[in-house]
Each structure stands twice: as C-alpha cells, then as structure tokens.
C-alpha cells in the first residue's frame, strides 16, 4: 500500500471518532440523535479528504501517519470543545478550516524549506518581536498575571504559538552552521563568539520569565533549545550547563517575580486554605476533576463544569475548561485510560516527527524536524504536566485539542513543515533510521 493510501485509511478512524463522539454527546444531552452529528462528521471528513488529496498532489512521499494523527487530535478537540460549549466549537471548526488553508499555503509557499535558512535572523527577530507584543500597551494585556495574548477587537492572538516555530527554524539554521565549531572545540577554547548565542538564548528565556511572566513558555522554548543543542553537538555538558543555568535562573525569579512566585506556591501547596479558594482554585479543581474520572471516566458529557444556581446563573466549577484545563475534563470523562490514550497519540505524533529527523539527509532538516517535534512534545508536557501538577500550571494550549485560533493555526504550520521535511527525506534513496 502506498504511503498516501495508508494516510487515507488512517483518516477513517478519525471520521468515526468525530461522528461517534458527537452522537454520544447528543444522546447524553437530548436523548435523541439529530442530524448535527452526521453533519459534523461529514464536514470533517470532507476537510480531511481535501487535505489528503492536496498532500497526495504536493508531497507524495511525506510521512503517512502525521496528518491522520494531527487530524485525530483536532477531531478529538472539536468533540471536547463542543461538549463544553457549542458556540466555541463552531468557532473552533472555523479555525480548523482556516488552519487547513494555512497548512496548504505553507506547503505551497515553503516547498523548498531550505530557503528559510537565508532569512534566519529576520525570522529570529520577528519571533522575539512576537513574544514581546503582549507587553505593548493597547494591544497586549495580562491574563492571570501572564502576558501571553494580544487583542484585536474581539480577536485574541497568542504570539508565542508562532514564535515557537520561528525560534526553532532559527536555531536549526544557526546550530547547523556552528555545530562544527561547538563539537570540535574543547571547552576552554570555545570563545564567547561561539558560546555567546547559547548565553543569549538563556538570557532570552530568563527575559521571558520577567516580561511574559510565563514559566511554561520559557520551559517550552528553552527545552527545545537544549534538545536541539544536544542533537547538534552531542555534548551532554552543554545541556547540563544550560539546564543548571535555567534552574538557577528560575529559582531566582521564582523568588523575585511575584507572579512566578505565586505560581510556584500554588504548585507546591494547592490545597492550602488561603489558596484553594482563590489563586489555587484552578489547579485544585483540575485535580478534583481528574480524581472524579477514575480508571474509566464518567463518560462523554458527564464532567461537572458548571453548576446552575437559582436565577438562571451558573457557577464555574472548573475554570478554563476549554483551554488550560481541557486535559482535566478529558480525564474526568474518559478516565485514566482515555487520558493515557491521548498521551499515546501525542507520543506517536512526536515519534513520527523524530522519525522524520532520523531519515532527513542534511543537518538543517534533521535539526528542524527534531526541533519541531521537541517543541511540540514539550508543549504537551508543559500543559499536561501543569494540570497534573508535575510542574507549575501555566497557560499554554494543548496542541490541536485546546480551544484557540492561534494554537490551531500554528500547529497546522508545524504539521506542514514536518510533512515538507519528511517528503524531501523520503524522496529518492533514503537512509532508514532506528525508530519505527
């Protein structure tokens, strides 16, 4: 079977999930199946088949599993968001269509992705500019103390989602060029010229802690940087030094930036009586929702997110259910097994990304694919780790699943880039790597 046929078959379970998921939801909600579930399923299938035909035409040799995995996550996200809020789901579906358009546009315009290397400093500068936008008065503003979004009228945009792609492209290009120096040079002989950019990126991560005040984003960016540095140089000492610097810096800022300090306090003591009803409410409720799910979950649509009270109002039980804490809703409704299955899908997606890096034939492609896979995996780790209290909870999205236009768009670009790299790698004689 050709790669593209495998892709098409991979989309079947996705469509079944959307149709089945909406049907299940509508049954629990209104005890009757109406046309909506079928319409949603058919519409989603139509979009996916279109994208599939597009990939068939433009990237015939691309990895056959990446797109179905991404579509599976997006479909799952749509069902969950529909279950949380129908209006948001309709918007998310619109964003999904726009995302697919951007996906196709990326494939058309970045056919030869090596061109990107030429613009690496422009891309780096633009990415840093994007990151700082939320601090610009007038368009930016803090949400829960972190500067993550900018506003255009009613539209909200999270620049970090796109900045992560730009930074990865820059690092892939930069590290491809300097890796020879970094690898060959003995530590004492590495001059500031070569070591400088490393310190610069560290400084940038620390700056993000101060300016954006978001530990999650800086873990994501700095982690991706360390990952790519390691791939480029194979020097564990660099990674250790970077990690140590990051941890020291984080501890320092955790003590000195009030917002970061508070996040750490909440992380360590979510049930402290003075926190549990105020700033710790979100993480505490997220944990309660997970405890409620147990092994098998309560079933689609059964998680208690809002409590209707007298007068037609409702009290929010789980805040940010459609964005930050969507993983808690998933665990509540599908249980440990459902949540583990979701993590597995993310792992498979990352695995295909790393596989692409393995079979890529030049340094830039390898670094780009490995960097994109790392930043994607780290984003999952930061948000799911936040909701499960592995690390402090911060406001990044769960890729493809959380509600949010910028998230969907940016992740479709990640997907497009991975497919482009993999198409180039698998065209012609390819050396096969180790990961299945």
């Amino acid at each position, binding site marked *: 079977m050709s790669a593209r046929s495998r892709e098409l078959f991979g989309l079947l379970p996705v469509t079944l999930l959307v149709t089945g998921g909406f049907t299940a939801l509508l049954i629990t909600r209104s005890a009757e199946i109406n046309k909506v579930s079928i319409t949603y399923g058919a519409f989603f299938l139509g979009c996916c088949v279109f994208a599939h035909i597009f990939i068939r035409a433009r990237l015939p040799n691309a990895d056959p599993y990446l797109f179905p995995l991404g579509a599976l996550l997006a479909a799952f996200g749509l069902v969950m968001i529909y279950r949380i809020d129908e209006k948001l789901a309709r918007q998310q579906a619109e964003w999904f269509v726009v995302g697919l358009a951007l996906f196709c546009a990326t494939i058309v315009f970045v056919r030869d992705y090596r061109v990107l290397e030429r613009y690496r400093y422009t891309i780096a500068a633009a990415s840093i500019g994007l990151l700082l936008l939320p601090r610009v008065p007038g368009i930016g503003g803090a949400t829960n103390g972190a500067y993550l979004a900018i506003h255009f009228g009613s539209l909200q945009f999270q620049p970090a989602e796109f900045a992560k792609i730009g930074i990865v492209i820059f690092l892939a290009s930069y590290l491809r060029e300097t890796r020879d120096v970094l690898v060959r040079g003995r530590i004492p002989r590495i001059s500031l010229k070569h070591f400088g950019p490393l310190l610069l990126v560290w400084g940038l991560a620390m700056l993000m802690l101060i300016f954006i005040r978001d530990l999650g984003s800086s873990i994501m960016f700095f982690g991706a940087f360390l990952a790519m540095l390691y791939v480029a140089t194979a020097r564990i000492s660099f990674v250790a030094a970077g990690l140590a610097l990051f941890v020291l810096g984080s501890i320092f800022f955790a003590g000195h930036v009030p917002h970061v300090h508070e996040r750490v306090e909440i992380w360590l003591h979510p049930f402290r009586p003075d926190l549990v009803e105020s700033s710790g409410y979100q993480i505490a409720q997220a944990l*309660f929702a997970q*405890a409620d799910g147990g092994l098998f979950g309560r079933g689609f649509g059964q998680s208690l997110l809002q*409590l209707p009270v007298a007068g037609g109002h409702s009290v929010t039980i789980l805040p940010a259910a459609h964005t930050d804490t969507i993983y808690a809703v998933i665990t509540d409704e599908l249980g440990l097994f459902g949540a583990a299955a979701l993590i597995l899908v993310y792992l498979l997606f990352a695995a295909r990304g790393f596989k692409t*890096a393995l079979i890529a034939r030049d340094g830039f492609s390898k670094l780009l694919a490995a960097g994109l896979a790392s930043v994607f995996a780290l984003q999952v780790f930061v948000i799911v780790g936040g909701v499960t209290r592995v690390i402090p909870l911060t406001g990044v999205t769960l890729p493809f699943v959380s509600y949010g236009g910028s998230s969907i768009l940016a992740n479709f670009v990640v997907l497009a880039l991975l497919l482009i790299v993999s198409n180039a790698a698998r065209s012609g004689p390819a050396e096969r*790597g180790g990961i299945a």
Partner: protein
Amino acid sequence: MNRQITQLFGVVLVLFTLLVVFTSRWTVFEAKSLQNQTANKRPLLEQLQIPRGFIFAGDGTKLAVNKRSGHGPTLRYSRVYPTNNLFSHAVGYSFISQGSAGLEKKYNDDLAGNSNEFSSIIDELSGQKKVGNDLYTTLDPAAQRLALQLLGNQAGSVVVLDPRDGAVRVMASVPNYNPNDIPERSRQLNTDKAAPLFNRATQGGYPPGSTMKVVTASAALDSGRYTPNSVVSGKSPKILGGVPLSNCCTEGSGNYGPLTLTEALAKSVNTVWGEVGEKLGKKTMFEYMNRFGFDKKPQLDLPSDELGVSGVYGSHGQLLGPSDAIDIARVAIGQERLRVSPLQMAEVAATVANGGKLMKPRLVERIESPDGRVIDKRGPAEIDQVMKESTAQQVTAMMEQVVKAGTATTAQIPGVTVAGKTGTAEVANGTANQAWFIAFAPVPNPRVAIAVTIERTQGEGGTVAAPIAKQVIEQLLGKGG
C-alpha cells in the same frame, strides 16, 4: 546526529510516562483523598443527584425520605424527615452545607449508594447508575413518641433495648430538634445553651447514682464473695474510703442494722454497697465495669463522635483505672467521678435481663436495595458473657424486690414482673438531682430493658424516672393505653 535524536525521543518517552504516572496518581492512587478535600464539592454535588436511600422504623414508618426538584442537569434531591423531632438524634440529618449526623452519617455510603471499590468498578463498566440503599431500623415510633411525651420539657433521656438481641427500640433525648430545620437553623441550634443537637442517650455523661449498685451487686455475687443473703451492716455513718459515708439525704434514711444484700438493694443502702465495693476492691470492680462496657465506646452503630465513654474521669478529662487513686466505695454507689451514658445503663439492665450475656446494641436491622434485595443483614451479636447465668438470676431476683417492696414501687405493672433499680445523684452542689431508673420486664423472659434519666430535677429516681419507665414498658409490652 541520529543517535542524539533517538536519545531525545527517549527523553520525550520518559516525560510522557511521567504524565501518565501523575494522571494515575490523581485518578486512582490519591483519588480518595482528593475526594475528601473540603474544597472538593464534587462528591457532595454528585450525591445530590442520587436519590438517597430511605430510613424506616421497625414498623415501616418512613423516618427519612427525599424531595425531588428540577430535572436533567439541575435535578436535585434533598432530605425530608416526615416524623420531624421524633428521632432527631438516632436518625440525624444529611444536608450539603450542614453535613450529617446520626444514622445518616454512619450509613452514608449505603444511603448514597457508594459501594465498595470492586463492585464500583463493575458498575462503572456496566454503566450502572448509583442508587441509595434503604435502612430498616429497629426503632419503635409509638414507644419513642410516648417517651418524648413523658419527658416533656425536662432535659433527659430514655433508652430501650431488646435484651435478647440488642435492638434499640427507643432512643429519646430531650431537648431535641427538627432535622428539617437544620438548613435554616443550624447555627442557632449549634449555639443553643440547651444543646438540642447533643444526643444525651449516647453522649451524655451523668453520675449514675444508685443504679450503679446493679453493677456492684453483679460483681459481688459473680466473684463468689457474696450471696444475696450475705449480711452487711447498714449503720450510718460509716467510714469508707477514709471519709464518713452516710445514708441520709438521698434515698431511704438513716441508720440500719444488719441487712441482707437483697434488702440493701431494695432500700438502696449506701453504706452497705459502699462497703461491698471497698471489700471487692478496685481490681474486681473495674473488671466487671469493663465487662459491662465501661471505659470504651459503646459498639452502637452511630458515628464514633456521637458516642461517649462511661467510666471514672480524672480532673483533666482522662479515664481513670484501678491503678489510680479512686474512692472505690463511692464508685460502687455511683458517686465519685463516675460518668455514665443512658445507653450504658440500658446495657447494664439488658445484660442482667439476658442471663448475663451482653448483646451488641444496634439500630439497623438490615439494608435493602430499592428493588427489595437484602444487601446486608445485621443479626444479633454477643459482646461478652458478663456474669454467670445463675448470678444474673440472683441479681434479677434482687431487682424484683426493688420494684415490689423497695424504692421503685411506682414502676409496678399489674400482671407483669418488673425488675429495676432507682438512682438519685446530687448535682449542682446538692441543689438538684440526676434521677435514674433502669429496669427490665417481663421477668422471667424479658423483652424490654430500659434506662430513664432526668437532668436537674427536684424529684428522685423512684418518683420521676420510674413512672416514665413503667409507661414505656407497658407500651412496648402491648399493655399501654
């Protein structure tokens, strides 16, 4: 670079495993403790959507039912107590904001349909909806109503046990409260000086007065040191515990000559029973008290914090034992620092009535699912053979004399042999009495064992407590009006 890429994937694998490990931590391993967090309203809200099991009296009277409101996601059940004040302390209450008490608290898991871990997994797999199970209690509404009516506005308590199987028939405590008022009035009830929420039957700690002589008599005869006909001097005052003890001022009066133990029980002569207690010694007295259930929580199926321990208390509220400095002569006549609950004294009466065998007191007879399947049946259970059967018969005969010709003639019922013992302990510096009466009937096959006590009364055990016991016994034996 491929080696590093593979290693990097290994790191991602570890990180994602960590995510699954933490998810299991919250969903499985620490789920229970998260559900018990006070900030977690989910279990409570969930309970509101489950029709809670009913609570029934022994005759089928509904003691706790549900009111339904809303539908779909706004469906809520709330508790209604059709009998109002009748069984406030035994049944208790269950409300979201105010918590729960009594049987509602003790049997919450059964009433709310929380089954054990294993069957809940089965239920989850089969998608079975939770339903609460019903409690069938041993309580007798007619006798309870009569007991409350007879206590009137006097603070006090009546406890009735079936001596044969430990079934609690009556658990009256005055003042009481209407559980339906809890949502609106819980603060007021909590701060009320008359302590209406306090279950005097099980939590009350009162000086038992002369009812304690039943325990002393059981110890004296069962240890083989005395017989009912043993003669002891009834002179008054008598130096006991290094301090003169007199018979004056409580019951009977004054100076007696030599008396048999039977006569001394009927007349409730303090100097005789004080001397008996002192001769038996602390070790023997405490041994028998322990067998009767003193010094530990009663094994009744109510929440542990609603059960008081009967025993001798030190100045810091600690329980004293045979190795402490105690005037055992005065313990033997129910003075010193002895504090007992009405439930404990009902158990003393029930033990003698049941041939010396103490049965585990119980409120719940069985638990049934709404479709009538018996989930759990709680049969009678023996706690201890407190004394020999022959001893119990001798003590019974002595207690019969108390009612026939002693201090409790007010408890006589025509055609029914009643055995009993009065008690009157001075409280509030001698300005008021704690009046007691414990009894059982009909001898020789008792079906009712009762303890009645009234706080701060001017009356005595024989004048205020015994008449109440008489009427409640008549009601329970089907002789009442």
